[in-house]
């Protein structure tokens, strides 16, 4: 308790550049991870719904693997094993971090896409096909636009989770927020100033993000009546 009563705000100020850099990398890695995850998730989600086993089976294996194992260990495997083996040499922690967040969130986003597509009544696809649209055209113009509206809340939720889970990347020394906290505490042995500051910064990021998602939701549902 004494430590907390002795809280020294000037430490935060002195290390502001470290914290700001942390916010920057946390934000950039999360956005990049989710952006790539969206592309992966779209294809994996549609592949899981395919009638063709050669599309469906790999998608199911991918989704189950990344949803069924800890992100922390996935990060270690990707940084120290997968990327060095695939590309011949170790990648920077930032590259590894983006890859790890992308493939992990891609698995969750795939499930969001699958559920969103399946929530659109079968009659919509049939009506589109009966007009002569191909399966791909029906998906693009009829099914996905409707599914996307329903997917905004769960996608926003996934984005918040990625934002918070990106703190695990401090294990491979990505200069993100949690890493900044560890550096400050390591230098000064001041855990309250170091980690409480980091949490408050995560909270601010989350709240800003929630507000943005909320506005997007509002804008999309304003497009049509009822």
């Amino acid at each position, binding site marked *: 308790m004494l430590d907390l009563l002795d809280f020294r705000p000037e430490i935060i100020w002195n290390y502001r550049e470290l914290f700001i850099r942390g916010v920057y990398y946390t934000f950039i890695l999360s956005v990049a991870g989710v952006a790539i995850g969206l592309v992966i998730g779209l294809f994996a989600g549609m592949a899981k719904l395919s009638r063709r086993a050669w599309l469906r089976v790999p998608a199911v294996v991918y989704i189950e693997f990344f949803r069924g194992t800890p992100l922390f260990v996935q990060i270690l495997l990707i940084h120290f094993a997968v990327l060095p083996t695939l590309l011949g040499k170790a990648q920077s922690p930032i590259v590894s971090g983006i890859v790890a967040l992308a493939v992990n969130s891609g698995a969750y986003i795939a499930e969001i896409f699958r559920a969103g597509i399946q929530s659109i009544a079968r009659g*919509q696809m049939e009506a589109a*096909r*009966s*007009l*002569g649209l191909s399966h791909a055209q029906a998906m693009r*113009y*009829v099914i996905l636009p*409707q599914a996307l509206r329903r997917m905004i809340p769960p996608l926003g939720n996934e984005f918040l989770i990625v934002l918070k889970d990106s703190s695990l990347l401090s294990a491979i020394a990505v200069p993100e927020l949690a890493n900044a906290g560890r550096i400050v505490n390591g230098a000064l042995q001041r855990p309250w100033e170091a980690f409480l500051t980091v949490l408050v910064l995560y909270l601010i990021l989350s709240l800003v993000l929630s507000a943005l998602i909320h506005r997007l939701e509002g804008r999309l549902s304003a497009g049509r*009546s009822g």
Partner: protein
Amino acid sequence: MLEKRSAPETHEPAAPLISVRGVSKSFGTNRVLKKIDLDVYPQEVVVIIGPSGSGKSTLLRCLNLLETVDEGEIVVDGVRLTDPKTDVDAVRRELGMVFQHFHLFPHMTVLENLILAPMKVRRRPRDAAVADARELLRKVGLADKEDAYPDALSGGQQQRVAIARALMMKPKAMLFDEPTSALDPEMVKEVLDVMKSLAREGMTMVVVTHEMGFAREVGDRVVFMDQGEIVEVGTPEAIFSRPQNPRTQTFLSKIL
């Protein structure tokens, strides 16, 4: 009373637009269509009646390849649908389909619903598609609704939009699957009126319906289906006034 076109017999020398030969279809162990034979001639209106579950919807859906057939042959305008090499999308755009529950695209305005397929499938320029759409909307009495979203429309209005949307592809024939069954009674007439005017213009139509008045007035032939079979085919007059088969008689006695 509608001005009736020539009786179907005079079409006989012409090739049928739709020809169904020995078509069977099962869902699992449930044999839903049993060796169906049916020809539909150009400009003919064929009305299919029968109890619920008799396979009427499945037969229509087979014509549009929304279901695959297990056995038999379907030829539409000279193209064998049952041939695996057939371009499914090419066949579908020649047949307009109207569903019981409309299935308008709820995220698009009425106008967007109409122009989507002509633009994407027929590569029709937007201006031309919009002009077609406005003309058709006028025809179905909804010229003032082009900017409305489907859920702002009544059921009858939605179904008229759905008919206009199908007509946008200039189909060779129109398939209707109980187009008025989901409507409040006061809206049935406005949809049937649109269908009647289509028939009058010579559109080839296959209509599944429980509207016996429509069948009598517009139908060239009435097909009675029961338990996956075509039990009896004849002119409306013959089917409704002198049904030959006991199953037809039983069905009609229940609904008339």
